[in-house]
């Protein structure tokens, strides 16, 4: 058997390789960064320009007039500040509470077939998506008389978000040491008391994660309010923006840009907050 030998690289070769590696890294990083940043550039400058156009140009002069006009537009503001908020917070509260209760039950009560339920949940929620089920959901909301209402939108969003929310909360509940609840039981607390005094405070971080995630999903959601709402007064910002850039003409372009910026801001801030507080971790490998 021959001994395979490799001549070690010379000093010059190593240096060259190092420099090449560094250059590749910087060039590669720049390309990646450019790929992600370029499409967004226009959105960062257009809101501040009074000229309504689509090309990338530094505003001259920089102006906040667009934002003023946004605030003057009653429909836009109501959509953003009232409707999106109502639907977002409504769904957030509903999803967080029901998911936590269900996750607690799945974890702490010996419900027969928890594995089957979990897998079933994953299965069905992957199959019955908002887009595939838009017809029956629409018909059902009509039947319930909830068409064109905030409640209808909130309920549908909650239904769609729950499976994933329960999944996420289940992880958090499982990590509470059982001795905590057992010692409370021994101390004389009833099941409900144990849940409220001991379990709930400990899973609060998880509830925050689920809450923020649910809020962001609803805040950015388009299809559901699009098909369930008719009255312009109830439209959330997502539908409002869509109607601005498809129906209205070019004159509104930079106005819409300003509006979009305002609309995106809460999501960006929430992301930064969650990232700072908890880091952007993966829960069970599924984070949507």
């Amino acid at each position, binding site marked *: 058997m021959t001994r395979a030998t490799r001549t070690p690289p010379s000093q010059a070769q190593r240096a060259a390789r190092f420099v090449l590696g560094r250059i590749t890294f*910087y060039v*590669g990083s720049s390309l*990646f*960064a450019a790929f992600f940043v*370029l*499409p*967004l550039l*226009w*959105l960062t400058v257009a809101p501040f320009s009074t000229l309504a156009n*689509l090309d*990338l140009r530094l505003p001259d002069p920089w102006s906040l007039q667009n934002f003023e006009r946004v605030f003057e537009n009653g429909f836009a503001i109501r959509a953003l500040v009232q409707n999106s908020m109502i639907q977002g917070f409504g769904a957030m509260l509903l999803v967080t509470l*029901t*998911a936590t*209760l*269900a996750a*607690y*039950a799945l974890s*702490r*009560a*010996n*419900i027969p077939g928890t594995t089957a339920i979990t*897998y079933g949940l*994953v299965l*069905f929620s*992957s*199959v*019955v998506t*908002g887009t*595939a*089920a*838009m*017809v*029956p959901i*629409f*018909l*059902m909301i009509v039947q319930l008389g909830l068409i064109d209402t905030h409640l209808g939108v909130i*309920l*549908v969003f*909650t*239904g*769609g978000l*729950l*499976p994933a929310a329960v999944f996420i909360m289940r992880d958090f509940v499982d990590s509470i040491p059982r001795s905590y609840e057992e010692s409370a039981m021994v101390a004389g607390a009833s*099941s*409900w008391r*144990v849940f409220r005094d001991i379990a709930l405070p400990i899973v609060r971080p998880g509830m925050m994660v689920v809450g923020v995630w649910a809020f*962001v999903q609803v805040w*950015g*959601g*388009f299809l559901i309010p699009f098909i369930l709402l008719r009255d312009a007064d109830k439209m959330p910002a*997502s*539908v409002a*923006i869509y109607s601005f850039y498809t129906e209205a003409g070019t004159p509104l372009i930079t106005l*819409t840009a300003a509006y*979009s910026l305002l*609309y*995106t801001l809460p*999501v960006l801030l929430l*992301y930064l907050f969650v990232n700072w507080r908890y880091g952007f971790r993966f829960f069970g*490998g599924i984070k949507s």
Partner: protein
Amino acid sequence: MQRRPILSLPTGALFMLPAGIFIVAFILLPFFWIAAVSFTNRTLTGRTAVNPEFVGLDNYLRLFDASRFLNSGEFGASLLITGQFVFFSAIIGQAFLGLALAWFFFNRKGWIQNTVTTIAIIAWIMPDVVVAFAWFAFLNGDGGTLNQILGFFGLPTPDWLLDLPLVSVIIFNIWRGTAFSMLLFSSALGAIPPSYLETANVVGASTWQRLRDIILPMIRSHIVTALILITLWTFNTFTPFLLTGGGPSYQTEVVSIYTYRTAFQFFRFGSGAAVGMVMMIINLGFALVYLSLLRTQRRSA
């Protein structure tokens, strides 16, 4: 070991009730309802709104009518478009790019990695409508950012949304969703014990050999998981609607948009339900593959 449950069964059932109601109402019920509606000729207005008639497999037959199947604007064409869309943007695009990013920044943490990751994530979490609007401006034929840059280098500047709609939508979707695979692969790579790679280093393996012989086999299950999930999500996404509305001339009408058009522009609920049903069956296929993979993963873990 089975421990005494902390919640009694009745209390547990009570806790699950609210979630249970929602899930039954918004996931189980639609599943069965859609089957029912798809066999009728129900519409929003007119005689068939009040008295939908049972038409058997009529709706399905019309969907798969061989004579018109692949015509523009028909279901077959939509399936074809969706197939290309999913294959290029999800499987090749997002997964590949995500892996490339994760590998590129593997063991090279620092402010550059942080910045690129953050931007990718921002692209992922920004609301659908804003992103679509930004790309609408980006791809604009006359003066959009992309054409400004291409023009600067003397490259052709097509009217992207009109001339190359499907390509635009595919690239858009890649841009949008890469962050997910990037994060997934990043954590998968991070989970490989460093000693495995160090051993390879000591033995003299090149970077490419290391990637091919050690890393890829070890994260294979993650790759498959990512592919299935991304495929499922991409298949069901409605976002292209916000960019092109399915056009021009139905050239970017993925199945989700086709469903919407059938149901809500012509208000043919029966047909819309049939399409939805087909979508669900396809989803079911993906989901079952995913579940069986989860099971095998759990068992070998």
